[in-house]
């Protein structure tokens, strides 16, 4: 075998070796994203802090045109939402979530993963969306059996009764 046929054979072998090496690296070695025997609890929700409003005084009302005389005046900016989470009585999260948007008119949001060894956990959640409030506006407790590789999503929606699990 000489000339171009030799090049096709030799070059072909070299190229095939390269393709096979690339194919191998295209799926190996595996990456262990989550430690073996662990699962994930994801706390994720968006929720707007309560509006901050006050009543208008009579003098203020009189100064307004008749069609704009609303009894209350509200700030456009939302207050932060405070959220806390405990796992088996241990605090894993206590955060004040600022509002989003350039002028703070958007909802607060949280997206947090907790990688835990498989097992049973008591999860306690508390939320305060109005700084004027003493204590918490909403709270919930769940018992979660977390299997290895399981993903549990905790959400919050006051319309469906507060915290809930998907």
């Amino acid at each position, binding site marked *: 075998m000489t000339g*171009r046929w030799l090049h096709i054979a030799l070059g072909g072998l*070299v*190229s095939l070796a390269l393709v096979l090496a*690339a194919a191998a690296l295209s799926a190996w070695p595996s990456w262990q994203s989550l430690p073996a025997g662990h699962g994930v609890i994801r706390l994720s929700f968006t929720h707007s802090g309560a509006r901050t409003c006050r009543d208008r005084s009579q003098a203020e009302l009189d100064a307004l045109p008749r069609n704009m005389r609303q009894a209350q005046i509200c700030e456009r900016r939302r207050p932060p939402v405070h959220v806390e989470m405990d796992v088996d009585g241990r605090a894993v999260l206590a955060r004040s979530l600022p509002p989003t948007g350039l002028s703070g008119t958007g909802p607060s949001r949280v997206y947090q993963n907790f990688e835990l060894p498989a097992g049973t956990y008591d999860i306690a959640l508390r939320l305060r969306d109005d700084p004027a409030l003493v204590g918490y506006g909403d709270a919930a407790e769940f018992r979660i059996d977390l299997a290895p590789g399981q993903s549990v999503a905790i959400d919050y929606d006051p319309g469906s009764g507060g915290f809930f699990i998907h």
Partner: protein
Amino acid sequence: MGAARAALRRGFDRAERGLDIAFGPDWNPLAQLGPLGWFLFWIVALTGVYLFIFFDTGVEAAYGSVEWLSTDHWWHAGVARSLHRYASDLMVLVMFTHLVREWAMDRYRGARWFSWFTGVPVIWFVYLSGITGYWLVWDKLAQYVAVTTTELLDTLGLFGEPIARNFASPQMLSDRFFTLMVFLHIAIPLLLLLAMWIHIQRISEPRTRPPRGLAVITLGALVAGSLILPAPLLGQADLAQVPQSIALDWFLLGLYPVIESVPAGVIWAGCVVFTVLLAGLPWLPHRADPPAAEVFLDHCNGCARCVADCPYAAITLEPRSDGAPFRFEVAVDPARCVACGICMGSCPSSTPFRRSGDLITGIDLPQRPLAQLRAEVIDAAEALAGPGRVLTLACGHGAGGAEARGRIVLPCVAMLPPSLIDFILSRGLAEGVCVAGCAERDCQNRVGAAWTKARFGRSRDPYLRARVPRERVLTVWAGPTEPGRLEAEVSAFSARLADMAPYGPVRQIGAEEKQEARAKAIGRSAAE
């Protein structure tokens, strides 16, 4: 940095010499990385169109269709899928090897900055194309990519609602997301194509197609590899689960483990720093090219040979401006000229035989004009002695890059007007001429080797005159790690010349003419 570059350059030269044996210099893949990148792109594009025929969009349907084509129809659609994946992987490999090689060969600075600078977005589009592609399969790998990517994107705070929430549980994912991903996976590769096209705009006759033999070998190897190791498909994505151990594509997704382990701010800063530093490399430090080629209209007839021969599209044909009876003249864009001198070698006015008046040609290098080159040849010839005198005209990027007795080092051997060889032999300056170019597989100035061969082979103007005895001209193509071979070939050539009968038509150059030539070279530089 200079030492690192030289070492890398020699490393490439060694590896390429090995591949020269396996593939032949003209099919050497390391010398064809740009064209191979284009070829791989087209393989990916065509297999992508084919796969799209069978692909269903939707949370449930997507995986089912990929599984169907990978198992039931493995022999055509499954192979197309493996080709699509492995050609993309090779594209990453080819791209980075190409990048390092262009750096090692110092082809990215000075007037050549444009190709480098516009190569940087290409890297991003290649990665983004790959990432959106993996997403579509909607297996566990896709799920991992989707979650990791959206979690990273959310740290930018650009989206009202965290997009990672879409993947927090099975209930939250909608088909709309797949429609978006399909759109992105078509739009981004189109942007990639645009970026690749811009990348080669400052190069004349860019090589976007590898030689047919290399294309056949590459495609054949890809098909064989796809049959031997078909692309794997992990289990279907399940958002109620977290993929634990994932078979990652380390070419396209190799940075995902880093994204997981390092704070997002570091990742974003890293991306910005990498991009800015890489794009700025041509100026870190800048290398100024020697002064650009200069046109002398009195000696230019507008034949446009230099326009056709310039490797960097630096010369343009313009309407005649000086009233001479020709239609055209030429103009050099100094911002694009690297001063390779190839245009000087192509100009019909570059004739060293001329004695009357100054030796000026139509297009000349200010720092190395033809008159000076002629004087250098005369001087170098005087250093030669004995029978079998060989004058070597060497490319500075090849085996003969170092100064030596009887050797003239040039930016490119295609800078030689073929008549200079005729001049050397017929005026008795040497018994033989060795033209020592850089490695044959890939000329430092892209086309210098090709034009030199074509001129000597009398298929491209200006021809090497038929009267020049070919047995007295030796061409050697050798890279920087082969000075030994060059020396050996020159010695053997010299021995052959010594055994030959003297070259008949020599009209020995006289002392007076030599003096005159030297004076004109000095006159030219003084005039600058």
